[in-house]
């Protein structure tokens, strides 16, 4: 295993780097489109036409134009197909595959039950994994990772671990989730949806907006990336995963779980908090999530405020896909030394004052990014990106 010992701890010597990525979001296809949308300050959340919303808390969501609902292919397969239509980077066939999702092809299950046809037993994440494996052309049958709304971050952490430990030198991580009646009705029953649009970290925030997306990152060992003369877009430097062990749907108000995750991530990256230049937060727009995150940031970053932003006021909460979209955008922000505005922010919550902004913010040189996600079951994930 390529590693050394330091103070009784295992120190990996292999770097896990990102060499390719792509995404489809409610802004359209491509990271550039998403980046431009975020920096424009324009939200992609709008009136939902996919199903009847009159019984729900809201009629707003961020959906991708051109997808067909309850047809032969599921929404997520339509999204993923668009990512591997030949215009994206070539995927090595020896790449290991990790798929991150919460509900996968749940629209197919809806269709089967509504029409009384088809086999619902096929509507599971293993079935989706087989389809995705075929679409990407990789030989590995792959692994599904599902950790609620921290699925993407967890999958990327596992991919980085595989590369650092020498078990793989190339891992393709794909993430996807879609806006369906199943999911929308569920979040509505939890009273979690903002009647208008999500306003992360705002004083008047009142819930999340659902969104949909699919994305991938191709990760390699730095050695292989250099050997193949790949452009290195960034490095997954560290990660920390934890659980609040507190409540199924609500975060711990004391934020101790997320603090544990962030500290583990900093330790894994062998840096201290002063190295972090900005935070790509989960920022769902719910009262409790955003308050919990700010409590965690204040507990960890005692040396001072740094830019915090959320992209969920722009493209909604894309559930299992959210972390992967956020990683790609954060890597862009590191490269461009500029973080996007928090779309829909009008008046920052008192706890977030001086941290979040409705304007783009410059990033200090030679700093790293912290990305955080949290999900049902009290799951927390933190990644350090360079």
């Amino acid at each position, binding site marked *: *295993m390529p590693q050394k010992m330091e103070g009784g*701890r*295992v120190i*990996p010597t292999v770097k896990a780097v990102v060499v390719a990525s792509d995404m489809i979001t409610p802004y359209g296809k491509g990271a550039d489109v998403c980046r431009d949308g975020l920096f424009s300050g324009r939200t992609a959340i709008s009136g939902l036409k996919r199903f*009847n919303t009159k*019984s729900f808390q809201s009629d707003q969501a961020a959906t991708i134009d051109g997808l067909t609902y309850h047809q032969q292919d599921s929404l997520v397969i339509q999204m993923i197909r668009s990512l591997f239509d030949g215009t994206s980077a070539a995927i090595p066939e020896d790449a290991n595959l990790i798929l991150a999702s*919460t*509900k996968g092809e*749940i629209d197919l*299950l*809806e269709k089967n*039950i*509504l029409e009384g046809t088809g086999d*619902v*037993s096929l*509507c*599971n*994440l*293993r079935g989706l*994994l*087989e389809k995705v494996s075929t679409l990407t052309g990789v030989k590995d*049958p*792959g*692994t*599904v*990772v*599902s*950790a*609620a709304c921290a699925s993407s971050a*967890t999958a990327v952490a*596992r991919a980085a*671990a*595989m590369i*650092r*430990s020498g*078990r793989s030198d190339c891992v393709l991580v794909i993430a996807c989730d879609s806006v369906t*009646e*199943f999911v929308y*009705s*569920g979040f*509505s*029953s*939890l009273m979690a949806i903002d009647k208008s649009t999500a306003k992360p970290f705002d004083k008047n925030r009142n819930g999340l907006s659902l969104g949909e997306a699919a994305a991938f990152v191709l990760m390699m060992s730095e050695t292989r990336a250099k050997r193949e003369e790949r452009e290195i877009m960034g490095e997954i430097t560290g990660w*920390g*995963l*934890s*659980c*609040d*062990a507190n*409540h*199924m*749907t609500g975060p711990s108000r004391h934020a101790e*779980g997320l603090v*544990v995750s962030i500290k583990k991530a900093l330790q*894994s990256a062998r840096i201290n908090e002063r190295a972090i230049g900005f935070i790509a937060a989960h920022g769902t727009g719910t009262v409790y999530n955003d308050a919990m995150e700010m409590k965690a940031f204040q507990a960890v970053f005692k040396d001072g405020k740094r830019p915090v932003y959320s992209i969920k006021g722009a493209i909604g909460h894309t559930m299992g896909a959210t972390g992967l979209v956020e990683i790609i955008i954060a890597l862009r922000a590191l490269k461009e030394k500029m973080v996007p505005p928090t779309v829909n922010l009008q008046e920052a919550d008192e706890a977030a004052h001086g941290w979040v902004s409705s304007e783009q913010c410059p990033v200090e040189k030679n700093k790293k990014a912290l990305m955080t996600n949290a*999900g*049902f*079951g*009290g*799951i927390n994930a933190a990644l350090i990106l360079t």
Partner: protein
Amino acid sequence: MNISIHGIGWLRKDAYGCIMKEKRSSYTDGGSVNARSGKDIFHYPFKNFGRLDTLSKATCRAVALALDDAGIGYSPGSKQDIGIIGTNTAGSLQSDVQYFKDYLESGRTLSRANLFIYTLPSSPLGEAAIYFGLQGPLLYATRRDKALAAIMAMAADMTFHDEASAMLAGMVEEDDAVFFVVMKGSDSGRSVLCNVDSAIEILNNTGTVPGIIKEFSNIKKGKSLR
């Protein structure tokens, strides 16, 4: 890597038990009929155990047996740096169908939040984390075949790299469940059943809970005889 199996808890339709302590109880035995509600498995009352979905109940019971087998205690309000990874064949499919049919039967107006929360494959693990105070990494993972062997390798990796002091790795299907306690062998001072690499080799060849119980019981018996 010096990572080992320190305890295994298992459940079947008609019995439950653990490997290190060589315990086996049948639901038809007079003294263990309460096992269906978990009363003789859990260390302290499990509030609202009845509202959990089937997979969550089985997960929590199997985890309780595995922790006991490894000599790891737990109590209300206390948290430990232990993570949990689970797998199965169909994810949350049964709960998905139950939730959506219930929603349709209500006229597509009201859905039940207490059914919706079990429509994530990671939800049973979340219930276990809350009751047992598991503050380490939590994830569900699956693959086409040999999923339990794969998550065992993942748990070993996470333990080796100090992502948690210990990991629970297990599989829960409708009638069967098994959870393993994975820890660094040298750190714990606890009894060890076998090296994790040996366990992964067994799980690569044995995918069913009855087969797993048989193989690991044989290892334990072999150790006892020595």
